[in-house]
């Protein structure tokens, strides 16, 4: 693999609570090459955000982090806090979910961007301000020079998210982690924000980790996809492999619960029954087994490991991945809900 910038190896995160230890992340592995876009998808609580916060080392002190995160060959989990401050923002930047709260309400947009620049560069205030205005222009804020003097509350949600993206670009990082960048936004704005993100990537040539639960967002942006379930990756592959040659029932279920424009519009959505397991005291076996239509007795005994299914790069964690090799669609495996079935269309 040429030019790997970020390597996550066997990352685990545990939170001790009064009810027991929550195994929020149970062994995540991935590598990120320069300029690559990796989409991480999964339900709420599958450990997507915790993974990203663990990489940034922004988790609360109570969290126990295991494994290794290597940036440029250095294990940043072992860095002292002071050096970690140099990595954050400069090498690895982060875009947060809610642009409404991720900007400081008492400072102007320009001030905050200039502050981000000055955090890692020894430049004068004026130079930082110039850079801030340029960044605003890059992310498509009209009349950037005037708008830089506005406060966050004078911006719309989409504009604020552009500002947040500009802030992530400010120090020209090698990796940008975008934690659900479009979730808090209007659907009509989402596409614009993704475009802005693409601009940011073209500008900084950074690798992007795009965390989302929106498979549509991933399909449009990502090169590779990592599907997470119950704190573990269950399928990794390129976008095409994941979408068209699915080898993991969970991924199939996710795809089946989305409406498709190219299917004539009269097929039923097939939701996945039940909800994800509690991450305290996980039973042995495959965590998806209680919700899986292909589940057998063996599934409840042994948890499947990620293994290559088609090529060397397409991995899935299912004992019976080969049963999906005919590229089945979700409706063939998952049953429509009872309510849905009684529905007259």
């Amino acid at each position, binding site marked *: 693999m040429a030019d790997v910038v970020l390597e996550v190896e066997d990352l685990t995160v545990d939170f001790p609570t009064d009810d027991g230890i929550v195994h929020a992340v149970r062994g995540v592995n991935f590598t990120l090459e320069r300029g690559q876009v990796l989409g991480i998808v999964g339900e709420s609580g599958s450990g997507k955000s915790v993974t990203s916060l663990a990489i*940034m080392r*922004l988790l609360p002190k109570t969290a126990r982090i295991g494994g290794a995160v290597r940036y440029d060959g250095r294990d940043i989990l072992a860095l002292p806090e*002071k050096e970690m*401050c*140099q*990595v*954050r*923002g*400069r090498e690895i*930047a*982060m875009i*947060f*979910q*809610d642009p409404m*709260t*991720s*900007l*400081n*309400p*008492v*400072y*102007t947009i*320009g*001030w905050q961007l200039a*502050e*981000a620049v000055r*955090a*890692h560069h020894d430049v004068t*205030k*004026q*130079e930082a*301000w*110039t*850079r801030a*205005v*340029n960044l605003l222009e*890059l992310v498509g804020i*009209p*009349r950037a*020079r*005037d708008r*830089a*003097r506005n*406060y966050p*509350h004078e911006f719309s949600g989409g504009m604020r998210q552009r500002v*947040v993206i500009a*802030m992530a670009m*400010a*120090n*020209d990082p090698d990796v940008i982690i975008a934690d659900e960048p479009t979730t808090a936004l209007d659907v009509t704005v989402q596409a614009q924000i993704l475009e802005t993100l693409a601009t940011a990537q073209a*500008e*900084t040539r950074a690798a992007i980790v795009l965390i989302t639960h929106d498979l549509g967002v991933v399909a449009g942006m990502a090169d590779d996809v990592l599907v997470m379930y119950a704190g573990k990756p269950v399928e990794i592959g390129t976008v095409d492999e994941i979408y068209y040659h699915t080898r993991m029932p969970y991924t199939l279920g996710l795809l089946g619960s989305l409406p498709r424009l190219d299917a004539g519009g009269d097929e039923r959505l097939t939701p996945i029954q039940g909800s994800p397991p509690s991450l305290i005291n996980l039973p042995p076996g495959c965590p998806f087994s209680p919700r899986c239509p292909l589940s057998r007795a063996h599934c409840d005994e042994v948890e499947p490991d990620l293994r290559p299914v088609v090529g060397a790069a397409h991995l899935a964690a299912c004992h019976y991945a080969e049963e999906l090799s005919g590229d089945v669609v979700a409706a063939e495996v998952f049953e429509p809900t009872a309510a849905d079935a009684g529905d007259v269309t």
Partner: protein
Amino acid sequence: MTEVRDDLPPPTAGAGHDPSPGGVQPGGPEREFTVEARSQLRMVVRRFMQHRLAVASLVVLVLVVIASLIGGRVWHFRFDAVGPDLSKPPSWKHPFGTDGIGHDTLAQVLHGAQKSVQVALLVAFVSTGFGTVLGAVAGYYGGKVDTLLMRFTDLVLSIPSIAFLAVLAAKVAHGSGNWLFIAFVLSALAWTYIARTVRATFLSLREKEFVEAARALGAKDRRIIFRHLLPNAVGPIIVSATIAVAVTILVETSLSYLGLGIQPPDTSLGLLISQNESAATTRPWLFYFPGLFIIIIALTVNFVGDGLRDAFDPTQTRVRA
């Protein structure tokens, strides 16, 4: 890093006056961003100016303070000199009247106001500064640091100020310098309320996503506390500080009444009131003029604080009458 920088227009191009659409608003000169740091201050001043009650209060307060500072030198009676006019009601010669042994009440009130304002402002500054830093650190870090600092605060809160002063007063020599001592003791007790308020504000502020965002940009704790969080806490801090001014004047009054505050021949507004309390019905000018000054100072400080708090809040757009 430099690669991307090179793609961007050089600073002069971005900073210059190249005509960008809408860059120049008709009717207003284009502002240069070299004055950015000042323009934020200017905005605060402008907002404050829109708060008419606060502006009026500021004018009155400044007049009272100036009068108390230089009035004693200009006025032709000294506050500690006695004259031949005993217990005279207000007249042109003695606008505030005189007391039973011939002190000019105006001179006394001016001098008393000077001492009261000195004590109150000093207490407000010292206790706000100390309480803010302590509360900010406790609220931001939480956990053991918070427990330690807040139990210390509780300990100080449990000290009764009057008993504390009564013990200390016996140890310290009285004289013209003792207003500093009073201010010091009052500050040592007053910061607790501000520390608790600031801690509470920080507890909620530190959970905001912009704190995490700042950390994700590589900001260190000290920078987050003082650059990112403190400006968000300006509202409660200013309110606490103005309340501290008013409360200090009143506490000083009660201390003087008990004979533990400012000692004669020096005087303060509180001392004047306690000395002349029995004259309230027969020679009301002795009692009401110092009382009026206490009310004026306490009220105007509160209104000014109110205006400042609104001025520092950028989301506040309401223009008050």
